[in-house]
């Protein structure tokens, strides 16, 4: 279960002035901000459960922004990342984008542009976390099904009528109906369409 806390913008930049300025700007629009002077500092504090987004200078001494990004991906962190890039680093950022990074913004930038990007990233993160939570909920419920119920559910979701399911499993059609009703009840599905959607989501 994800913690019920406000999203945080994690600012990672080794330039004191830029870091300080970003902190002030984000606080002025009432965003929660945490700042870090290096990738290592951030990793020491990082909790994948924390909602929010990362604002990351692509070019830093020590571990670079790109290296941190790769490290987070290895940890399967879903937190969106916005790269702050300089004039000469667009190629690097584009490469990162192809690899699936959230976004990048080139210095110097318009404050509203940055805030919009952050807002968008926070929404994406929020959506991702909701989806993740739902998926987790469905998976938990699927785990409560008996093996037979799971078999029945898989076939139904595959689009097979009760009669075919009964034949395939070598049980009566009436028994299929009972299992099906239990599955619907345990997963909280209101219709066949709903059940199908849940299963697709859980398997994603």
């Amino acid at each position, binding site marked *: 279960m994800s913690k019920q806390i406000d999203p945080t913008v994690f600012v990672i930049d080794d*330039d004191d*002035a*830029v870091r*300080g*300025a*970003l902190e*002030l*700007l984000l*606080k*002025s*629009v009432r965003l929660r901000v945490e700042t870090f002077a290096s990738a290592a500092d951030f990793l020491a504090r990082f909790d994948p459960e924390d909602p929010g987004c990362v604002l990351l200078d692509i*070019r830093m*001494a020590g571990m670079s922004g790109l290296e941190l990004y790769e490290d987070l991906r290895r940890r399967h962190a879903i937190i969106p990342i916005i790269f*702050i890039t*300089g*004039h*000469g*680093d667009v190629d690097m950022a584009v490469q990162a984008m192809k690899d699936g990074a959230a976004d990048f913004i080139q*210095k*110097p*930038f*318009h*404050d*509203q542009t*940055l805030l919009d990007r952050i807002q968008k990233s926070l929404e994406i993160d929020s959506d991702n976390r909701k989806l993740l939570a739902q998926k987790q909920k469905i998976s938990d419920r699927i785990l409560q099904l008996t093996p037979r119920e799971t078999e029945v559910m898989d076939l139904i979701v595959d689009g097979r009528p009760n009669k075919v399911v009964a034949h395939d499993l070598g049980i009566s059609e009436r028994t299929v109906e009972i299992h099906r009703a239990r599955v619907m009840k345990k997963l909280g599905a209101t219709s066949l369409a709903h059940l199908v959607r849940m299963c697709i989501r859980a398997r994603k």
Partner: protein
Amino acid sequence: MPTEHNLDTVRLRGILSAAVDGIIQINASGKIEEFNPAAERIFGYSASEVIGDNVSCLMTETDRSRHDHYVQNYIETRVPKIIGIGRLVTGLRKNGEEFPMRLAVGEILTDEGEHLFVGMVRDVTEQQRIQEKLTRSERQLTIRWEHAPIPMAAVDAEGSIIRVNPAASAFWGRSASELTSLPLEELVHSADLDIYQGALRSLVSRASQSLQFRLRFAHPDKSLLHATVHCTGLFDEENELREILAQVVDRTAEVAAELEAGAHRERLAHATRIGTMGELAAGIAHEVNQPLTAISVYASACQRILESDPKDPPVLLDALTKIHDQALRAGEVIRRLRSFVSKRESERELVDVNEAIREVVQLASTETRAVDFAVITELTDGLPPSRIDAIQIQQVLLNLIRNGKEAMQGVAQPEEEIHITSRQNLDGQIEVSVTDRGNGISPEAEQALFDPFFTTKHNGMGMGLSISRSIIAAHGGKLVFQRNKDRGTRFYFTLPVTLGVEQ
């Protein structure tokens, strides 16, 4: 008892035999009557051989035929051609050798009314030879003086010009008559007067006998003449200073060439700095972008704070201070780059070498690379200042740092570093080293490393090390390198130290 007459005769004999000059007495018909020992020595005849002979046997063919006629003519006309006058004639020795002699003739009229002539003869062969030699050497001296390509002037103990040769006239752009009796110091450039007067004093007081020093002169066309002056004091028998001979080696063209070479080096250095700048462009953009980003973000934060409530003045004030600082930071980056790139005359100032190193390390950290290696400095505190052109020395350092980083690409681990050290070596000079952890220099490359246009890089011009070495050489130092024991190369150069009072 000798008679009066006899006594005279004895006295005369004594005089004749003691005389240095040859004495020959002849009668009116030219017959030799007296021939003293000196005459015997001069002509090689004994008296007994020639007495009674015509004196013409002592003369050359030309004079011989005329002699009798001369004597006869004189007796008749009484107009002297030689008597009491003396002249230079040619004598003939017994061995047939002709020689120059000075001849004076006196006439004696005897009581008997007979004309006798006495010739006094001096062999001037030796004298004439010396004379000729003197004349010849004087002529040679004159030729040497007149035609010497080196300007020369003789000055007296007060420093006034006694004479000059044509080369000196040409050098100083004034005629010999203009220069003669002019105090030499009027030609000396005012900045060098002390040098000249010191040298003159030293020569006059005989603290030194000859001196050599650099001097600048002012040409009438306002141009500056550079010279090395060699001065020698000339003393007479009494050991009094007679004159000072100044030989002037014109160095004007040489100095102009040096200046031109220096200017050329500066142009080249400037060109490579510009080239370096091009390669650093991305890094520069980053350097300026950082403060600009901070400024723009602080400013927009201020706007938002002002639009909202509460306004929170301390936060605003702090943000404004930061904006100010960052604007200065951006300006500083630009100033540093400008001064690095700007084209200017070489300026040597007393510089803290460590400070120059720190500045250039800042500049070098703006390089963009996939893997950018850190530059670590280990500088010795309290180094004496050095009189250098900081920009040029920084160019050398930047070049070495960039070379080092390039050598490390793909070879060294990202956490490996370039080390810069400074220290004072055993000779008291400042030694700066730049050590990389790259793949080193191949033996083939070592040979040509400092040659112009030698490069191992794909897009290098091959001027970096060549110019660096000439910059260090122009500072009186040396740029060399050595292989590290394990991996990489250490380049180091020396710079002179300026101690105590400035020259």
